[in-house]
């Protein structure tokens, strides 16, 4: 991959091997990064499970959360994954306009999710929940909840920024299909993490 970009008299005879996985280094790098990031969330979620199992009591989730609202949040995020996939497909077919439209929709989805999360958080905080306290029972609930959803929210925010940069590059004609694909990988990963958080905090 990178060898192809070297200019001038040092251009190599052959572009180097991409075996054993037949993918370019930048996609490989993104995959390995995603594995690492997944293990970061695994660390958090394992810690959460450890503490929750060790705790004698845990707040009743139906008392704390508005589940239908969370379902809407989840739906929004999953939908943004679908628009992202469409953008990736469009970029590979070279349809620049379509790429921009669907990147825009994905960004909107991400922003809507963040707005809803902010709304949910402010409701909980008004009720007296924080990192160190929790009106419904053990304070560790507040600590794990805000830490993990906060970390995920930060990831969504970073994803939105990456998508915005990708879109801007496409707008000015510097974007490459691969860039959209890499951004898409990250975005799907962030959505997948939400599925785990949704299950472990809101459903069980």
């Amino acid at each position: 991959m990178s060898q192809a970009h070297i200019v001038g008299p040092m251009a190599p005879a052959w572009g180097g091997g991409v075996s054993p996985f037949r993918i370019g280094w930048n996609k490989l790098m993104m995959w390995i990064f995603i594995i690492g990031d997944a293990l970061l969330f695994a660390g958090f979620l394992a810690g959460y499970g450890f503490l929750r199992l060790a705790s004698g009591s845990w707040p009743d989730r139906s008392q704390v959360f508005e589940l239908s609202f969370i379902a809407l949040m989840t739906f929004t995020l999953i939908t943004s994954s679908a628009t992202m996939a469409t953008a990736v497909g469009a970029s590979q077919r070279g349809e620049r306009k379509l790429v921009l439209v669907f990147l825009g929709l994905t960004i909107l989805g991400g922003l809507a999710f963040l707005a809803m999360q902010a709304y949910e958080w402010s409701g909980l905080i008004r009720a007296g929940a924080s990192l160190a306290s929790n009106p419904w029972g053990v304070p560790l609930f507040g600590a794990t909840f805000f830490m993990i959803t906060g970390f995920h929210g930060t990831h969504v925010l970073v994803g939105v920024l990456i998508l915005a940069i990708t879109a801007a590059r496409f707008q000015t004609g510097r974007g490459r299909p691969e860039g959209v694909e890499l951004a898409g990988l990250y975005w799907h990963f962030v959505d997948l993490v939400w599925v785990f958080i949704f299950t472990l905090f809101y459903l069980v």
Partner: protein
Amino acid sequence: MAEKLETAHAGFLRRYVFSTDHKVIGIQYLLVSMGMAVVGGLLAVLIRLQLAWPGEKWPWLGKLFPDGMAGGVMKPEFYLSLVTMHGTLMIFFVVSLALLGGFGNFLIPLQVGARDMAFPFLNMLSFWTLVPGCLIMLGSFLVEGGAAAAGWTAYPPLSAVRSAIPGSQWGQTLWIVAMALFIVSFTMGGLNYVTTILDLRTRGMSLMRMPVTLWTLFFASALGLVAFPPLTAAAVMLLLDRHFGTSFFLPSGLFFGNQVLPNEGGTPLLWQHLFWFLGHPEVYVLILPALGIVLEILPVFARKPVFGYRLTVYSLVAIAFLSMIVWGHHMYVSGMSPYLGEFFAIGTMAITIPSAVIGTNMIATLWGGSLRFTTPMLFALAALVFFGTGGFGGIFLGNAASDIYLHDSYFVVGHFHFMIGGVTLMAAFAGCYYWFPKMFGRMMSERLGKLHFWLTFPTFYAIFLLMHYMGLAGMPRRYYAFDRFEFLEALQAPQVWITLIAFVLSAAQLLFLINFLGSLLRGAVAGPNPWGATTLEWAAPSPPPHGNWGDQLPEVHRWPYDYSVPGAPTDFTPQTAGPAEVPITF
């Protein structure tokens, strides 16, 4: 990212400071690790002073450390900071930096036959993220309360409660911040190492034709990339516990400074699990590249192919996998279920098998070779010795039954200094003496090198072998002074001995620094291949120019260990030699 190789003609800053050239970055890493090693070593000397002559007055040291050694006598909290920082610096900021940052950066593109790393800018960013990390870690000695003092493992509640000890004030917070920068830097570096090894190999460099060093660097980077994130998660929780009133690691009823803490619900065990999930793979992150360097150097100076190449690679796979599931053997005394302990003990015993295979392969590489005892060879052999004897100690610590007696004793201190002290340090020295001609185009002095070796290896071995016996006699680690325990009185004489030997060991390292700097300026000029070695980096000029190779990338035709091939014109056949010159065997 299209990286143009434009820095060759750039100014001083772009060439030597903010360089994207993997060789410059590698040397930068190596130099930083040497600087940190000097600091870490001096901390160890201070620790030894206290242990040999507890409570002794050192007025001049009192002037140097007006807080920690007020009036010249070492305070207990300063001693704990020393132990903590010695461990942290040596593990993360010396050995990791030298082996992965230094040799990893320098060797990977050269040995795979690439012009640079996959993403050179990220590589530079990795180094310049690390530098503030180093400065913050060192600077933590200067804040109120001094540097972190909860041990390199940073166990809560000591590390999570700010009022617990002086070092738990700002020192511990800075420790976390510096570690965070280290982890970010390591992640950027590791992503580059793994992708470069997989994707930038030149024509003919199949996976099974890679030098063992590359294999070990690959597994070490991959292990680090999966082991560090959970530690990051734990560090975030620790930071929240310290500054935002959470109690992830703090159970109810903790009593510090005459008051009960308000925390409830957490457990310090969670930290131990998350920490050791990193911590155990981390020791393999350190030791695998060291083994790789030894396996690279032994065949060169035995003029004989490395023994059991494939088996070594498969053993590395096994070690990498098993190392992820044995972290519990650091926690046998934490009250874990004996059945769980059994699982971890069996896993740990299983690791001894591939480790022994690698050790045996090293010895078999020497068998029947025509040995040349150059300085790099001597240090490589020393690393092999530490790997063998240190490994025996590991068997006792890996078994729950014997570990419950030995846990937190000097036996542990002796063991891990044999392994991640002895093996890695000897291998790092071996690597320095071996690749110095490639890095700088000059040879290091053999005379000084041998003197350095004979003053380093026996002293290092003596110090930590003695510690094994002290541990067996029941001496616990991390204590400030041992003169208050009747049953340890007999061990005061070896304490003094160890300290005296440690003085010799530390002074001997000056020889290395003198040799390094002296050879840089006036060492004998080295050709491209002074040792008669076969791997790809020796096909490039010494030092290799920017972009490493001329117009054409090298092409590889054989495995890297064709030494003494019958009928070949020389007793080494470079990987680039075609089938027309020498028949291909592997």
